[in-house]
């Protein structure tokens, strides 16, 4: 019977008349009073003498404290809620007291942990492998509690017996049963006392042989210190993201340089690269720019308390990245169109053709002149089969290389190979000419 309503629920400091969210109680009150008071009054009564009187009284209430007080007294049976904002009364800071209590507590924890670490250091550093010697060594470092009068495990209160043996915590020397003891991996212990030692992260069962028997209390303290150490050395999310971003930028730098070179070569009408190569390069730079932008956005969006320096740093990183992308990566030279390239190439080709024509004419003239000189020239026309010319073979191999390099976007290689190929071509042409002549 109740029809569902799809409208969203409004919530906040909503004005009851225009339903605008005014963000704070005081703003809402002033908005309501300034914009809707009259409206309300008109609605209340067209000729409302009482309303005016009431307004006067209400205004007086705001200014005269005594009046308010009297009114509050009149309402004596009911609680009175002042309509204005209350001012803060006498306040006292207890931060110093809190700090004193806290630092005493921290001090106690720190000294205890330090004591344990010194013991741990001694234990671990010159630990003999022989079990008996090891036991002796452990007892030298930490005096073990005399267990003769201890009948129950202090932790779980179970009686010691033939099956439930007494054990000692290797750090504080207190007595405990096997079930209540925790083992600290010796390798882990070594990294705790010497953080510069290589970390070994093999997962294996820790037992009495490769671990230290500790009570829960000592274990927690040592573990806590380890965590503090790790936290201190751990990179924050911000740093990792920033490093990733720098990595991308480093990749982008040579890519842009390469692109410029390729672009120039296209404009010069060289055939080293074709348009699709350059387009692929452009795509790669675009991807890098996208990655940098994404990372910098992530950095800027990292949660941080406002007005902290970190927030500023994040904002700066974002701005710098945006600037970098705009200036370096997106301001790339426009590529020539296929037609333009065709044009440039044709011009170049024509020029080359002319050059060849001239060369040929010269050679022709020379030959005529020579044949005139020698009536019969013995032509030393060597048997040149195109197929097994080593130059041609070489050229084919290089073409294959170029193809491969192009596929893998290694354009520097392409350039070198193309140059090589050109030289070979020239050589070949010279050879042909010399054969002909």
């Amino acid at each position, binding site marked *: 019977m*109740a029809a569902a309503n799809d409208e969203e629920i409004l*919530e906040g*400091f909503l004005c009851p008349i225009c339903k605008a*969210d005014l963000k704070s*109680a005081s703003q809402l009150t002033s908005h309501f009073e300034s914009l809707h008071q009259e409206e309300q009054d008109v*609605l*209340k*009564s067209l000729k409302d003498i009482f*309303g005016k009187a009431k307004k006067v009284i209400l205004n007086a209430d705001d200014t005269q404290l005594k009046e308010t007080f009297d009114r509050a007294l009149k309402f004596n049976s009911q609680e009175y809620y002042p309509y204005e904002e209350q001012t803060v009364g006498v306040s006292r800071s207890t931060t110093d007291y809190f700090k004193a209590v806290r630092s005493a507590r921290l001090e106690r924890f720190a000294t205890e942990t330090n004591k344990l670490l010194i013991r741990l250091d001694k234990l671990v550093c010159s630990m003999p492998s022989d079990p008996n010697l090891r036991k002796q060594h452990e007892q030298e470092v930490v005096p073990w509690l005399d267990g003769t009068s201890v009948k129950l495990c202090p932790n779980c209160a179970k009686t010691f017996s033939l099956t439930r043996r007494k054990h000692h915590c290797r750090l504080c020397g207190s007595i405990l049963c096997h079930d209540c003891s925790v083992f600290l991996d010796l390798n882990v212990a070594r990294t705790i006392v010497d953080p510069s030692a290589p970390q070994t992260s093999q997962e294996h069962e820790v037992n009495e042989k490769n671990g230290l028997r500790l009570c829960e209390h000592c274990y927690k303290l040592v573990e806590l210190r380890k965590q503090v150490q790790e936290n201190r050395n751990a990179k924050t999310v911000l740093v990792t993201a920033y490093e990733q971003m720098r990595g991308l930028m480093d990749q982008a730098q040579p890519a842009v340089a390469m692109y410029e070179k390729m672009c120039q070569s296209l404009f010069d009408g060289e055939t080293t690269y074709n348009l699709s190569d350059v387009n692929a390069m452009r795509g790669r730079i675009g991807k890098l720019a996208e990655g940098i932008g994404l990372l910098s956005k992530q950095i800027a969006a990292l949660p941080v308390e406002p007005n902290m320096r970190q927030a500023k740093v994040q904002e700066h990183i974002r701005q710098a990245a945006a600037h970098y992308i705009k200036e370096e990566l997106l301001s790339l030279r426009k590529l020539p169109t296929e037609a333009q390239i065709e044009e440039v190439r044709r011009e170049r080709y024509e020029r080359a053709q002319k050059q060849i024509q001239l060369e040929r004419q010269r050679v022709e003239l020379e030959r005529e002149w020579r044949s005139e000189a020698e009536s019969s020239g013995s032509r030393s026309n060597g048997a040149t089969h195109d197929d097994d010319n080593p130059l041609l073979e070489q050229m084919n191999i290089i073409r294959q290389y170029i193809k491969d390099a192009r596929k893998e976007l290694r354009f520097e290689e392409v350039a070198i190979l193309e140059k090589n190929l050109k030289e070979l071509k020239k050589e070949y042409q010279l050879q042909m000419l010399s054969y002909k002549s």
Partner: protein
Amino acid sequence: MDMATNRNAAAQRPNGAPQTKVCQFKLVLLGESAVGKSSLVLRFVKGQFHEYQESTIGAAFLTQTLCLDDTTVKFEIWDTAGQERYHSLAPMYYRGAQAAIVVYDITNQDTFGRAKNWVKELQRQASPSIVIALAGNKSDLAAKRMVEFEEAQAYADENGLLFMETSAKTAMNVNDIFLAIANKLPKSESAGGGAAGGARRLNDADAPRSSSCCK
């Protein structure tokens, strides 16, 4: 009625006469914080219940339409924040309201005391014809009851309030209390025109009384 006809064009008969009339009412929820005002409204409007309903900031506005036999009642619901510091905003919201639900928590005697104060404030400062309903919420927690049903019923009878024990969690009496309010509200022709028309009529009668209590 003209406005009502426009709004309800789909429900018109071929001859042009409206089949049902539409009445719009402003309803406000009041009560101590954490008694379940928002939960009650959410259950009524969306049929949902959240175990951890967040505390309302300022006020929330929702609408819901009920169909009675011959009328369609549209509630404009103002769900106010119960926290003490927002108390001063409440008059803005109950001003011109035709109905109010004062909510208390049956497992907490203090909230019942606060509810009585709200009723008193409404009787003194809201429009005199306002329909007030008292809702003893969290009736699913009857085992921890601190406010007796009889006590609340007696108080409601004394002050002429509608009274029900509700549970937003189990949906018990939630629709019923809104329905009871809808039935009790006067569905005169002027109320059908929307809040403005209704408000004017109510406020004409309201003026002398409200001024007399603020001397």
